[in-house]
């Protein structure tokens, strides 16, 4: 763009739309699976931490320290390069989902730990006094309350997982960022591609935030948890 000024050519986007759409689908797929898996990891390990389940709690603490204490980029390279050395052969899409799940799961473990810790003790005690055994107290009292409490933090982590899926381009997982930056590299259509990236990521993030706030509002209308 140094020469005579850059001419923005939207038709480049149309021309590459099939590739870009495929990249977007991969971004959406890996992010969705990563977000769901990260939430499940967070739920299980967060509960183990909050209720100090022997062994599981220590394993969870070490896992959180490792994955929150190292860059996600390093984690992606590690999973991509090291797992085959250990005899675990995964295709690049599987590594992609695994990396997002493990990274998001470490944050969600802390999110869920805090949420379970904030469940009012009086409600759990009342459930015990009614004769509800521990597994029913967990399933019907602790879990639904913790879910309401965890939603804002879970939403933030999920949005990070979605955005950080862009890092997966470094292992040639052909998600949106990979596809777009390749087009930049081969055809020098910088602004068209970055416009696509900006608009698409922003759109996905806004959509996710909106969905989460709808769930939060729906649950808040059915009994706030904070003050009761």
């Amino acid at each position: 763009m140094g020469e005579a000024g850059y001419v923005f050519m939207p038709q480049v986007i149309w021309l590459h739309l099939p590739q870009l759409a495929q990249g977007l689908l991969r971004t959406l797929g890996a992010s969705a699976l990563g977000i769901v898996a990260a939430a499940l990891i967070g739920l299980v390990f967060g509960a183990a931490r909050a209720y100090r389940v022997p062994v599981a709690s220590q394993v969870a603490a070490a896992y959180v320290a490792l994955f929150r204490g190292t860059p996600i980029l390093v984690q992606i390279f590690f999973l991509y390069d090291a797992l085959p050395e250990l005899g675990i052969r995964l295709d690049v899409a599987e590594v992609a989902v695994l990396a997002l799940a493990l990274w998001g799961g470490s944050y969600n473990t802390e999110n869920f730990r805090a949420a379970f810790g904030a469940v009012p003790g009086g409600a759990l005690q009342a459930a015990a006094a009614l004769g509800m055994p521990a597994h029913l107290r967990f399933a019907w009292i602790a879990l639904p309350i913790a879910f309401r409490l965890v939603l804002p933090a879970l939403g933030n982590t999920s949005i990070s997982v979605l955005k950080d899926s862009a890092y997966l381009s470094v292992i040639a997982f052909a998600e949106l960022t990979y596809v777009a930056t390749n087009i930049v590299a081969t055809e020098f259509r910088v602004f068209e591609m970055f416009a696509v990236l900006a608009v698409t990521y922003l759109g996905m993030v806004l959509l996710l935030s909106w969905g989460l706030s709808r769930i939060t509002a729906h649950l808040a209308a059915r009994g706030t948890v904070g003050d009761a």
Partner: protein
Amino acid sequence: MRSRASEQIPASLRPLVEVRGVKKRFGSNEVLKGIDMTIAGGEVVVIVGPSGSGKSTLLRCLNRLEGIDGGEILFEGRSVSDYREHDLRQRIGMVFQQFNLFPHLSALDNLTIAPRKIHRTARAVCEARAHELLARVGLAAKAGSYPSQLSGGQQQRVAIARALMMEPRVMLFDEATSALDPELIGEVLAVMRQLADDGMTMAVVTHEMQFAREVGNRVVFMDGGQIVEQGRPDAVLLNPVEPRTRQFLKRISQ
């Protein structure tokens, strides 16, 4: 670990709850120093005393929310430690100072969640009974309200109805009106009074002396982890024998 004495007495004449030499310690702090007490079926026992005297701890030992370090507690003639924990608790209802409603559930669901999940009783059956009980505590119109939408007095009445859903043999009230604004205390006491009139066996920890006198069959005065004095409400509250009881009653009437 049934006691021989209790096996010889016909069940109908046996006290519902027998507390024998119960001791309880929190660390080095002995909060119950050998409590002996009985609660007969249909009786309303009111437990009074200064804070820290062990009243609440005693109640919480009855349904095993706290374990005991000595002595024994019999419920319907059987040691409470012989019951499966949740079986025991289904027979002993408890109402807490802070209401402790489930904040994520409507009043109706607060009542039905335990029977629905424990006994897998059909929702319709539970809800019919829950509506009945809500009506009984004067909250028929509040079935769909969430705890945060209810006043303290309403929350506590829901909590009482919730405990009654399990059809307990005895109800424990742990300072049920202490967290309430003064103008809301009356509505909760009225429900408790109605319950007593209906013949419910009750153990009530409270600072409401008028309630103790009018509703209690017996008043137990505790201080320092011991029962100092007990007897008919008028006797204990109007003509106490023990200096410590007199001192306490004088202090709270000021």
